[in-house]
């Protein structure tokens, strides 16, 4: 009961967050020393004052800024995110089209990051100071510090161009047709349609961008798991577990890991948020038709409604992920209670 109330309250605050984010992004995007007219109209139309006036009038840019904002918020509370200047379609429709590709990639990345991050972290902690530990620590430092645009280009160059073992950019091979749309997550949709080879192809295409996108989070999870596990292993209740005669494996699996996971969950939350931020670069490099590319193009055109729309979407994601992390705390740690 307490938990449901807690979730309801957190979601209620989401409303204020969305309005706040819209304000901040609105102010920042309008302060950019650039002109949407220049970004969107051709040179001939720019020279034509009537065309410029018509453009401004169409997008409400002839009104004072605060009026523009109130109109925007007025539409926002009715669930209308406006129309994209660039695509001329409702922003909500655009987001619905582009978001599944992003979510599919993000989920794939975070799963890879969690599995390998935790695995590496555990091995590293158990084999502390061994050659294996040094190697893993080296990899995790690289994962955290190498910029994703460079890693993405190198991966493409090596595994696609040079060795030819990984597929090229895009969500599926160019000669294949996308699966029937259900969730718009290609792997899931292909599986639902029973098309195994298509699912495998889609999964295979996720590999390189997924690794690049997840490398930072994986490094972070590895390091946190290692240090957290080492810390827990030095606590009194681990000595109690030893005194009970448990094997080292039981001590780690039953007594240490559960406690060590608590800080790791926080890092997974942070990492997932980070992932969505890193999307812009990775999607652009891998020609991934997702929200990152959409945001990149919208920013280039000073497409205000699209920019604000993407920002709101990503901030909602942050909130939902943080909420999930907080709920997970309660599952992992019986001392956490929701009020």
């Amino acid at each position, binding site marked *: 009961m307490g938990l449901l109330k807690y979730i309801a309250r957190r979601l209620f605050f989401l409303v204020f967050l969305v309005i706040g984010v819209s304000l901040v992004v609105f102010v920042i995007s309008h302060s950019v020393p650039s002109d949407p007219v220049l970004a969107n109209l051709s040179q001939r139309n720019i020279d034509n004052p009537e065309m410029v006036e018509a453009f401004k009038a169409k997008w409400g840019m002839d009104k004072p800024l605060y009026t523009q904002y109130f109109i925007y918020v007025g539409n926002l509370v009715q669930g209308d995110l406006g129309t994209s200047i660039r695509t001329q379609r409702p922003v909500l429709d655009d987001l619905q089209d582009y978001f599944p590709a992003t979510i599919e990639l993000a989920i794939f990345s975070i799963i890879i990051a969690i599995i390998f991050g935790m695995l590496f972290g555990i091995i590293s902690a158990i084999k502390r100071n061994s050659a294996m530990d040094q190697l893993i620590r080296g990899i995790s430092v690289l994962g955290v510090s190498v910029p994703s645009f460079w890693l993405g280009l190198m991966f493409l160059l090596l595994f696609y161009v040079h060795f030819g073992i990984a597929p090229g950019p895009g969500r599926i091979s160019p000669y294949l047709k996308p699966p029937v749309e259900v969730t718009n997550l290609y792997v899931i949709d292909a599986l639902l349609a029973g098309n195994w080879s298509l699912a495998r192809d889609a999964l295979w295409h996720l590999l390189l961008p997924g690794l690049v996108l997840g490398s930072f989070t994986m490094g972070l999870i590895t390091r946190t798991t290692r240090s957290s596990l080492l810390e827990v292993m030095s606590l009194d209740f681990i000595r*109690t577990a030893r*005194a*009970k*005669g*448990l094997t080292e494996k039981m001590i780690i699996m*039953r007594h240490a890991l*559960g*406690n060590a996971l608590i800080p790791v969950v926080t890092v997974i939350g942070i990492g997932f948020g980070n992932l969505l931020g890193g999307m812009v670069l990775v999607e652009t490099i891998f020609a991934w038709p997702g929200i990152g590319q959409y945001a990149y193009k919208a920013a280039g055109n000073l497409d205000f409604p699209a920019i604000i729309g993407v920002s709101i979407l990503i901030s909602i994601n942050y909130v939902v992920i943080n909420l999930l992390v907080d709920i997970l705390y309660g599952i992992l*740690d*019986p001392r956490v209670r929701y009020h």
Partner: protein
Amino acid sequence: MSDDIGQDDLLRINNLNVQFRTSEGVFRAVRDVSISVRSGETLGIVGESGSGKSVTALSIMNLVPNPPGETSGEIIFNQQDLRELSAEEVRKIRGNEIAMIFQEPMTSLNPIHTCGKQIMEPLLLHKGFSKKEAKARALELLTMVGIPIPEQRFKEYPHQLSGGMRQRVMIAMALACRPKLLLADEPTTALDVTIQAQIMELLKNLRQEIDSAIIMITHDLGIITEMCDRVVVMYAGQVVESGPLKELIREPLHPYTEGLLRSIPTITREKLRLHTIEGTVPSPFEMPFGCSFQPRCNYSTSICSEKAPDLIHVSPDRAVRCWRQVNELGQD
């Protein structure tokens, strides 16, 4: 060197040495300690912080972390040297035939498992109980250690219990497999005074019920006098005196024991100030030459700062490490 008591000892430690290599140098926590415990007996080990009493207990369980700890000597339990056994064989004895209660009940239980689960664990591991049997035994243990509404406590997590209750859970857990030897390392130190008394009362009563031998480690001579049969006094990693409780209280042979006994507060004594032993325990890195206690000793003579005394037996039951006794014996 050892307390020669004979073959019926349950546990016999011979010439135990434990040292830690640290960046500041080698720290000899336990120096040449020999102790024996008979079945069913309660042995008290008393000493100040840093006297090596806890490390002695941990080394019986083979729980001294290595590195940095290095252990040597013999630990003979049930006619077999635990130090000769494989890690796997020692593990099967731990928590089963030898169990331990720790000083900090607040942190010694795993916060993410219920108390019941933690009590059941050694039963499932060592005794091959089914879950149902283990639960029944766990509830029985909770009742035995005086926990009200055991069915409810069984399901609760450690943070829902008070310090005293947690220590009772620790005791229940230690007694789960009916150990032959129970090591209690300052079981009441971290608790409130009133709770301390309750836990001591519980341990005293349990002593009659279970027929485990107990090694009670404490810095509190009051606890020792309440429940021990024999006492070992440790100072700076060494045994300085050992013997039956009554004899040791009536006639302490080592100046340190004498000092400890004189510092117990009593109601009858009409002194306003408690007796204290002058000075502090020497730093493990700067042990005084000769006898370790010599800088604080009122009876110190020239030989005390020149040569370290050996542990000598003044009677079959009593041993002491002091030049005064050596000299007296020599004169006899």
